[in-house]
């Protein structure tokens, strides 16, 4: 045994057939497991225990060689399937390897090597665990695994590993979280925020005169036209050319793209004007596709010299953008303020133009339906952010007013606070306020 002992306090562990990344994970795990000190060694002759991945390629041959060279080495097999037979130096751990089971195995092997009695406390991860090991314990009494006296102990270890039992270990008490001190920020700064969400101050919804201010009529604006053309492109499965004043847009449903001959600098003002008779569109022939690419490329070459404004969008992103410009922090006329609204799925926020607080609103609304005013109150944010977000989500088909009576009856639950909310808040501030690496979200 003396040749195997690296230290009097640790289990020297080596690996066979385990990939390097997994080895590193084990190393992390061992480092955190203070009660059973383990040390990785690359020289297998120095190891007391070898972890063998029994599912690794060509492992039988390698293992055979290992046993020929080191017949006394303790082996812990990791495998999807339990080996049909194990000898007195072999142990087994079922994959996927669970931390409790691994800890149990190592604890038992530690006990075996140090000559301690095997503890048979069953694993219960939810209960507080108590330390049964004395930190001053040394491997002063090594166990001779060849000794017949120790055979029942080895058998007991294998049985315990199989039965998922463990020597319990005390976990340190958690620090009490610190109190929060500030209100939520906007979370990722938005350049030219007012273009997206307007500047409308919160209104008193009980005042009919003020109530007028929070609604707009999408049908009078470019939003409704874009919406119709998107639908038309899908139905016709063709490219549609839309002319707005002197400007041209191509809607390609197949590619899910919208191309334009102008950029946001021109398009945004178009969203501020009511539209009716200035609009015309036509369905293009399938042969037009090849021509479209030439037009786009020619236009790109031309405009790159002038400016770098974006002139092509994903169809959903274009609809979202147009809606934000048209709504400017308002709601489509007729939207109920008293009925809950729901979010079918998270918007693809990383590829859509930014709405301040969008991540926060999405999380709350996706969890359960809320009225729009409940969201503003619960998050402590201004109405225009919530209204802009809802209008944009609705236009791309992700949010709707709930018609279910049940949603009206139930008061939304106040979400449970996380035990580490203080740290999470700090992390959030760091992510939101990060200046060096982040790029500011700019308009299209």
């Amino acid at each position, binding site marked *: 045994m003396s040749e195997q002992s690296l230290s009097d306090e640790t289990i020297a562990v080596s690996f066979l057939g385990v990939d390097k990344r997994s080895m590193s994970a084990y*190393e992390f795990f061992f480092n955190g497991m203070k009660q059973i000190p383990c040390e990785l060694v690359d020289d297998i002759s120095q190891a007391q225990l070898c972890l063998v991945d029994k599912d690794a390629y060509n492992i039988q041959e390698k293992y055979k060689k290992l046993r020929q060279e080191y017949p006394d080495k303790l082996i812990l097999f990791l495998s999807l399937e339990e080996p049909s037979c194990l000898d007195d130096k072999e142990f087994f751990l079922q994959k996927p390897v669970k931390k409790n089971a691994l800890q149990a195995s190592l604890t038992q092997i530690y006990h075996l090597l140090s000559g301690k009695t095997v503890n048979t406390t069953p694993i219960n991860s939810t209960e507080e665990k108590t330390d049964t090991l004395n930190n001053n314990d040394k491997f002063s009494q090594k166990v001779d695994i060849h000794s017949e006296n120790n055979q029942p102990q080895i058998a007991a270890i294998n049985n315990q590993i199989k039965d998922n039992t463990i020597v319990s270990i005390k976990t340190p008490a958690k620090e009490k979280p610190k109190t929060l001190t500030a209100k939520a920020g906007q979370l990722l700064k938005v350049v030219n925020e007012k273009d997206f969400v307007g500047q409308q101050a919160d209104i008193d919804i009980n005042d009919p005169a003020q109530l007028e201010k929070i609604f707009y009529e999408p049908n009078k604006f470019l939003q409704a036209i874009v919406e119709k053309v998107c639908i038309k492109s899908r139905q016709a499965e063709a490219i549609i050319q839309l002319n707005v004043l002197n400007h041209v847009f191509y809607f390609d449903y197949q590619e899910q793209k919208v191309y334009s001959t102008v950029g946001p600098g021109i398009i945004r003002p178009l969203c501020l004007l009511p539209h009716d008779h200035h609009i015309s569109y036509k369905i293009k022939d399938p042969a037009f596709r090849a021509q479209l690419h030439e037009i786009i490329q020619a236009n790109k070459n031309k405009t790159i010299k002038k400016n770098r404004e974006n002139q092509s969008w994903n169809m959903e992103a274009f609809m979202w953008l147009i809606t934000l410009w048209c709504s400017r922090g308002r709601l489509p006329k007729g939207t109920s303020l008293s009925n809950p609204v729901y979010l079918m799925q998270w918007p*693809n926020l990383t590829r859509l133009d930014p709405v301040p607080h969008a991540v926060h609103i999405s*999380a709350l609304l996706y969890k359960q339906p809320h009225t729009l005013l409940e969201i503003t109150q619960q998050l402590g944010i201004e109405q225009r952010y919530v209204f802009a977000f809802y209008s944009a989500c609705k236009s791309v088909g992700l949010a709707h007013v709930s018609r279910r009576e049940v949603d009206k009856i139930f008061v939304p639950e106040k979400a449970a606070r996380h035990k580490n909310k203080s740290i999470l*808040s700090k992390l959030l501030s760091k992510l939101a306020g990060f200046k060096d690496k982040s790029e500011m979200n700019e308009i299209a």
Partner: protein
Amino acid sequence: MNELKIIFAGPVGSGKTTAIETLSDAAPVSTNQSASDMTRIRKSKTTVAMDYGTMTLDDQEKIHLYGTPGQERFDFMWDILTNNGLGLVLLLDNTRRDPLNDMTFFLESFKDYINETAVSIGITQTKIVPLLKMDQYHRKLKELGFKGPIFEVDARSFNDMSHLVQALLFTIDPGLECSA
């Protein structure tokens, strides 16, 4: 001292290492640098061949960012990494043969952990070969009985990764506020 973790999982090439590099304050411990030299794993833990980074919040607290090792399906032993974890960031490579199958595999593998915490999913490589639409990922997520955000991301972009982690944090606790 609180030392919490965020776990980054996903198939090989999905951008875990890059994502951790993007978010980490300190130079992350890179898998790729040391994985080629097996002999460097010494008894006194010289090299750690694993995706690992940290985000320092103040003098006392750090968030640890771990990329799951075990690229082979039969090497999964991620359970040992998830202890004290805040949640899972799952990255899926849209150019792989069957990203929905990858999604199923990872969500099922981390099922218990996700149920205790939360998951946030980033789809990478969407510009190269847009094999699947986002709706298909959302449908699969629902079908598997999970809820969570799914964003297209570029693991090199701090903005994208920040969104993904913020979404994870708000999913964990929608009442969260920025600290001063």
